[in-house]
């Protein structure tokens, strides 16, 4: 391994002036930064710096868990926040480590690239004086000349160079294994390509999540407002989003008898731009690939359809997705009716008469009366709701969860439980008359699909970088650089008409098979058979 770790020190300079000293300092720092030791330390730091991201919840992975962490550790969480503990991989300290590492990498591989390009153009160097001092050496008698020896070597894909002297002596120099260094450089440059790809993907990519309930009335078009949650890269504008609309027309899920899911598939009607509506089916692991966006199926659940009829006889229907809380699809959610019980005479909303229903949906009610579902499909569905009347707290302007009632309003008594401690059970088609004579009907359920919609323009670059990197890595780890020389001295005694040669071999990397290879080369030369 001929890694030049410390490059030769600059020649001793005359008493330095300040700019010169600065320059020297810079040069030394640069040399330090690009040394293998620094690379090692930085690699190590990077590994250590990655650990907190697996211990603390990460906002980019799961926002909800971060909120939970805040509730569980109210005094620690703000500190972690300040240190970037919830966004480790976007934090300045993480970035500074990998940027330094990649600077070091550039500084390290550019000179190597130059040296290697030079080595590729140069002929293998002339033989050292004492071939018998090399790790492998042999004396042999051959019947053939330098050209034939070179041919033998070339057949084994050595590069060769014949040097003939006036006095009749000659050497054949041969070298093999340049691909090792080529591979090494390819690998390190590919790492750069991957980093650049990831960076650009972050800037120019975007993603959004959306729950899409089945039914023509529940369609979704790609615009920021219609996402439940979205993140645009710094260089992406809302207007850049591609133009498409989706309607979920069918959703299927199949389960084992144990309740373990077997497979899912979602069928949608898609329109892209002004194009016609097309029907497409996609599933987990097999996303719907559109122009400029990929739609991934990442979850599913049940949306509850409810009709509320208020004291003036006005009905409203809502379809609200309930979120599964376990593998059997025990689902929780809320239906809020802020605009009900409006007196037609005054046409004014009475904020003490808003209605909210909170509870659980069990696709299969167990026989033991427990409050959790026993199977994920709708074998014996039932809805358990508690009714609240009062101010839902929706007007304050703070966006609340659409899956839970505002607990603050309940605590202050502005929103009151009006149906008692036990949730009311409803089967599909049943209706429930409340204490004030208003009525809630459970119309049924519809499936919904949780979609992750994403676009990452540099994915192909990253993949290509990774593939080339792997190729380089294999060449580099599998290759062996080695040199072989054959020399005939001017006064080589002729024995039986042959020429007496000395041969020497130098493996430049750790290569246990070299002795065999060398012996074979010597044998081939002796026999004169290529």
């Amino acid at each position, binding site marked *: *391994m*001929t*890694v030049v*770790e410390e490059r030769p020190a600059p020649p001793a300079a005359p008493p330095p002036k300040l700019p010169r000293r600065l320059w020297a300092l810079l040069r030394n720092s640069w040399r330090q930064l690009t040394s*293998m*030791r620094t*690379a*090692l330390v930085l*690699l*190590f730091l*990077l*590994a250590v710096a*990655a*650990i907190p*991201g*697996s*211990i603390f919840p990460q906002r*980019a*992975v799961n926002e909800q868990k971060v909120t939970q962490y805040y509730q569980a550790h109210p005094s620690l969480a703000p500190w972690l926040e300040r240190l970037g503990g919830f966004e*480790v*991989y976007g934090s300045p300290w993480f970035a500074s480590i990998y940027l330094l590492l990649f600077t070091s990498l550039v500084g390290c591989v550019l000179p190597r690239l130059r040296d290697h390009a030079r080595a590729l153009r140069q002929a293998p160097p002339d033989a050292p004086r004492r071939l018998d001092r*090399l*790790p492998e050496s042999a004396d042999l008698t051959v019947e053939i000349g330098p050209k034939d020896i070179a041919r033998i070597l070339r057949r084994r894909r050595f590069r060769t160079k014949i040097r003939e002297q006036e006095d009749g002596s000659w050497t054949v120099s041969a070298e093999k294994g340049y691909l090792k260094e080529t591979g090494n450089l390819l690998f390190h440059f590919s790492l750069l390509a991957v980093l650049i790809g990831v960076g650009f993907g972050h800037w120019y990519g975007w*993603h959004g999540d959306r729950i899409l309930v089945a039914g023509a009335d529940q369609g979704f078009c790609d615009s920021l407002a219609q996402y439940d949650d979205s993140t645009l890269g710094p260089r992406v504008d809302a207007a850049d989003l591609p133009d498409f609309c989706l309607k979920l027309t069918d959703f299927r899920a199949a389960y*084992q008898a*144990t*309740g*373990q*899911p*077997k*497979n*899912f598939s979602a069928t949608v009607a898609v329109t892209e731009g002004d194009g016609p509506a097309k029907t497409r089916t996609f*599933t*987990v*692991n*097999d*996303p719907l690939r559109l122009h400029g966006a*990929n739609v*991934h199926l*990442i*979850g*599913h659940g049940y949306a509850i359809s409810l009709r509320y009829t208020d004291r003036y006889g006005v009905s409203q229907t809502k379809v609200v997705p309930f979120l599964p809380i*376990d*593998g059997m699809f025990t689902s929780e959610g809320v239906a809020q009716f802020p605009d009900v019980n409006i007196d037609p005479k005054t046409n004014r909303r009475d904020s003490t008469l808003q209605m909210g229903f909170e509870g659980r949906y069990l696709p299969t009610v167990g026989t033991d009366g427990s409050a959790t579902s026993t199977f994920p499909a709708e074998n014996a569905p039932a809805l358990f709701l508690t009714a609240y009347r009062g101010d839902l707290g929706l007007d304050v302007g703070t966006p609340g969860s659409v899956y839970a009632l505002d607990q603050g309003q309940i605590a202050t008594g502005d929103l009151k439980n009006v149906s008692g401690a036990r949730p009311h059970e409803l089967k599909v088609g049943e209706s429930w008359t409340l204490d004030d004579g208003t009525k809630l009907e459970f119309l049924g359920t519809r499936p919904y699909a949780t979609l*992750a*919609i*994403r676009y*990452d323009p540099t*994915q192909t670059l*990253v993949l290509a970088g*990774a*593939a080339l990197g*792997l190729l380089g*890595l294999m060449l580099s*780890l599998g290759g062996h650089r080695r040199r072989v020389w054959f020399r005939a001295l001017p006064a080589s005694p002729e024995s039986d008409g042959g020429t007496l040669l000395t041969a020497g071999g*130098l493996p430049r*990397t750790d290569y*246990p098979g*070299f*002795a065999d290879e060398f012996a074979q080369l010597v044998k081939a030369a002796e026999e004169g058979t290529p």
Partner: protein
Amino acid sequence: MAELSNQLMAVAVLAYLAAMVCYAAEYAFGSKSRIGRAAVRPARQLVGSGAPVSDIADDEDIVEVAKPDRSGEIFGRIAVGLNIVALLLHLGALTTRGIAADRMPWGNMYEYILSATFVGSAVWVGVLIRRPAIRHIGLFVTLALVLLLGADGMIAYTPVGPLVPALHSYWFVIHVSTIILASGIFLIGAVPATMFLIRDGYDRGKRRFPYSLGRNTPDATVLERLTFRLHAFAFPLFTFGALIAGPIWAEASWGRYWGWDPKEVWAFISWIVYAGYLHARATPSVKRTVATWIALLGFATMLMNLFGVNLFFGGFHSYANPGGM
């Protein structure tokens, strides 16, 4: 069939245990065996001085003929026989498990460890056949296998079940099989790495436990080179499995190729640490012992990913928690 698999697994562990006992017996009795004798030869210079000239010891030449000690030799041979029997039983446990589940036996943590240890064991037997001189570290290989399989059966056992839909993908097969191969080889690589450190300490005059174990191991150079070869072989496999096939599958499945999920984080950490090992080994001024410590650290991060992350952190990877999509 699932029952049979469990029984085979138990018998395989017993067979590894028996092999371990025999290796240990050879270790104890066999100090004058030919391997032990060969190992007493002075250690070659280890720390590359830049010129690899001093570093070209051929593996085979350590097996020098000295007067063999019969009892040690016999125990050693029995140990290898038992080791091979254990490997076959292990294969049986794996195959029956696959038949019971009607798929590749890599669907959960239990099966994953069962497979990775199998790969490790198979690679070990392969190395053993090519280089019998290495037999003395068999004690530690079987010890590692027994510990891992025991932990697998006790902590991670999962009844046979079908795959969750997220795992229905041919990338699943590619991703998991390469990682299992790589992990198995890293596992076997960790054994000569440990033995090298012990042997190196022994050669430098340390006699306390565990360095006392260094008395009977193969030559330090041989151990170190074997360590490197195994790691150099496993590293590209791991790169492909964890950092290429994994992300390709994640892209199809979750929409992002890399999302810093705890399992991804720890795969990244392992990869960086092993890259550090390869760097350290290629840097002349870094001692081989230091480099080898880094390789062991890499293995520790792999174990962390296997046990720690599955059991404590959860995350997207549905291995340890059934039911999710």
